[in-house]
């Protein structure tokens, strides 16, 4: 027995983290859905969910309960076994990928030395969940959706991978935590060094998570719900969870690789140390807003609930502020790191939402053309450009900013050329029979 305890001792903290992630993730995903609906409503001149709890704050929980209680339908000619397995695969892939991500300097399940490769590999397994689910449903719409999505994921994985390679060249390591430390050490987020790589990854990650304007696998006006058409109830919820987990994963990858992970803006400039107050002040502001809204709620319970939310926010603010006043046991790096990390991830996801409600949807051939004719060449050129910049800097002693400016401009020129030829190609296609 003692041996067993000794054996597990070093794994205790990671296990705890894993438990926290598995327990909290569905909740976070639910609230991301709520935020998405609220953002959508705001952009579309509506209010969004308002009924369950004040300002719809309990909507995710109500949704979850509804989904759990729904009848579980399995189509008659479905391959039951695979129909069962597919959503689980999707969720597992998403959650496993989270295990190698550093949410803060202290909060990471495992700092693998092949961290990035692991995450990319594991999240690519999410394809199976989609493809097998679409196939097992035994429906034309599902199968078409599944085939589309697998083709899409495979195509855009290349571009995303190339964009990440650019950042890898700069960091010189695959370990996620070390990549952030390199950015801290160099005093610059990689998005400023390799902006094209960042935007390539942004586009590719939208495509990889099947979000609009690349949401063809689940294009509701064409394929009803794509691979999820035949799913209902809890299994459907699992697919949804997987989708939002994947969003969090790609957001985290982008944050780590390009946006400085858990670092606050300008971590090395002491003149800007007032940024350390931002987390606490921000949470206090949210608490204040809740208190301000509380008396305007129609029902007493809702008033109390909003006050409770305000209290929670204030508590978080207090915890975030504590290290600044020298309270022991609360490490500033860990707490603020987590805050900044999540803030960046959610900003990234906000961009996803913003794009979703602004743009129409691509057609499948256009999507493929964008991926293969534009993104992949640009990302390959970008990798070479970064390599050239590094050589110029290290071997020829160019100033860093000059080297990267030159290569970025060069890559932009190539991108512009590609876009121009693509447009010509497109107009030529229209004339003939596409």
């Amino acid at each position, binding site marked *: 027995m003692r041996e067993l305890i000794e054996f597990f001792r070093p794994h205790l903290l990671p296990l705890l983290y894993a438990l926290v992630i598995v327990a909290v993730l569905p909740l976070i995903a639910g609230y991301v859905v709520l935020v998405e609906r609220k953002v959508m409503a705001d952009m*579309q001149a509506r209010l969004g969910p308002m009924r369950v709890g004040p300002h719809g704050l309990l909507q995710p929980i109500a949704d979850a309960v509804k989904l759990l209680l729904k009848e579980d339908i399995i189509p008659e000619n479905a391959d039951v076994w695979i129909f069962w397995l597919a959503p689980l695969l999707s969720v597992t892939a998403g959650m496993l990928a989270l295990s190698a991500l550093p949410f803060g300097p202290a909060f990471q399940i495992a700092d693998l030395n092949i961290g990035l490769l692991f995450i990319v590999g594991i999240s690519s397994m999410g394809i199976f969940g989609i493809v097998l689910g679409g196939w097992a449903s035994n429906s034309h719409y599902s199968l078409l959706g599944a085939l589309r999505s697998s083709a899409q994921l495979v195509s855009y994985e290349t571009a995303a991978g190339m964009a990440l390679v650019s950042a890898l060249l700069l960091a010189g390591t695959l370990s996620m935590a070390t990549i952030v430390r390199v950015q801290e050490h160099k005093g610059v987020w990689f998005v400023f060094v390799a902006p094209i790589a960042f935007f390539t990854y942004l586009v590719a990650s939208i495509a990889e998570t099947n979000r609009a304007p690349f949401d063809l696998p689940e294009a509701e006006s064409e394929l009803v719900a794509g691979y999820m058409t035949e799913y209902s109830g809890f299994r459907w919820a699992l697919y949804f969870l997987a989708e939002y987990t994947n969003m969090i994963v790609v957001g985290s990858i982008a944050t780590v690789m390009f946006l400085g992970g858990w670092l606050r803006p300008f971590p090395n400039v002491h003149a800007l140390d007032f940024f350390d107050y931002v987390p606490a002040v921000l949470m206090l502001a949210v608490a204040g807003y809740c208190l301000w809204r509380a008396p305007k709620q129609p029902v007493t319970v809702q008033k109390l609930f909003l006050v409770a939310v305000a209290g929670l926010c204030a508590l978080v603010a207090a915890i975030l502020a504590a290290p600044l006043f020298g309270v022991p046991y609360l490490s500033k790096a860990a707490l603020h790191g987590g805050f900044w990390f999540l803030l960046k991830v959610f900003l990234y996801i906000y961009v996803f939402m913003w794009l979703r409600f602004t743009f*129409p*949807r691509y057609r499948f051939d256009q999507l493929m053309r964008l991926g293969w004719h534009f993104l992949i060449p640009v990302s390959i050129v970008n990798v070479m450009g970064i390599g050239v910049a590094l050589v110029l800097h290290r071997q020829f002693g160019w100033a860093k900013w000059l080297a990267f400016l030159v290569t970025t401009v060069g890559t932009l020129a190539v991108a512009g050329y590609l876009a121009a030829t693509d447009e010509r190609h497109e107009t030529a296609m229209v004339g003939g029979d596409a």
Partner: protein
Amino acid sequence: MADTRTTLPNTEMTVLGADEIILNMGPQHPSTHGVLRVKLKLDGEKVVGSECIIGYLHRGVEKIAEHRSYQQFAPYVDRMDYVAAVSNGLGYCEAIEKLLGAEAPPRARVVRTILTELQRIVSHLFWLGTHALDIGALTPLFYCLREREEILKIFEKYCGARLTTHAFRIGGLQYETYDGFEMEVERFCNDFAHKIDEYEALLTENRIWLGRTKGVGVLSAADAIAFGVSGPVLRASGVKWDIRKAMPYAAYDQYKFEIPTGQNGDTYDRYLVRMEEMRQSRLICLQAIENIPTGPIMARIGKVLKPPPGEVYHSIEAPKGEIGYYVVSDGTTQPYRVRVRPPSFINLQAFDKMVRGHLVADVVAIIGTIDIVLGEVDR
């Protein structure tokens, strides 16, 4: 596959090549705008043939007319194109007036014009929202419905109904305009100018929108005329034909407006034409409310309508195209036969021509761009 099979008429859809499948869209499909059923013959994702199967919403409107008096049938026409009920009503009322040899008084004609043009804006707004939604843009729908709501409020204040308004009566209007009618219409028209710019900012220059609509569903002018399509679909193909100008009815001869036309006859041109039509409708409304003549709102036609035996065809420019009523009277209180020429039904015939060679994703764009209402197609 340059196969001879692909050029066979639709009835040969059962003859399939090695890579061809039949995909059945509808009648329960989110973007067939009701209960249209489309059978598509696909080569991969490419459409090589199509067949529209209609009739799921058939209610026998034309037959009902034979058992109702002329006034009693008027509300039924609202239920054909329920997105543009006012226009349907106008066509019917004017057809019967023509049969009777009566004419609505000037005030009624101007109010009719205003309401019909507002209805055109409503119909186009609804089209824009759903069409954009089909192509994947979620947001315009809500903007469009927001403005549509304003007009529906005007309708509601005027006649008590929002959708199936039954706003007009044979011989003129049943209701006087309410106090502040002119003001509200004017305020709407003034606000609406910016709103159209807002929609255009979202879509017109958008690369994805251009990619999805340009060159999709091309209908040449010759084809358009051959199929007998009308309305914006016809005008987008470059044919400058609008019944409001060609055979003016109501009070259209008094107002200045342009007929927008396109050149390529593709989905994008139809989009532009409809956007411009909304602007023109707005201008017509503004001109009309400036000077609404006073006077009676009903012609003297009596309570019981007994038109002399004979037949009449009258058509107007509804939002979706030419809506025509062919009415035969045998001298009794009930029509002997009413035949409706619904624009959606005729326009839908061009669907197969427009859809061939395109991808499945374009099918929904093309269904949207024809702007069908199944209530009208099936009647």
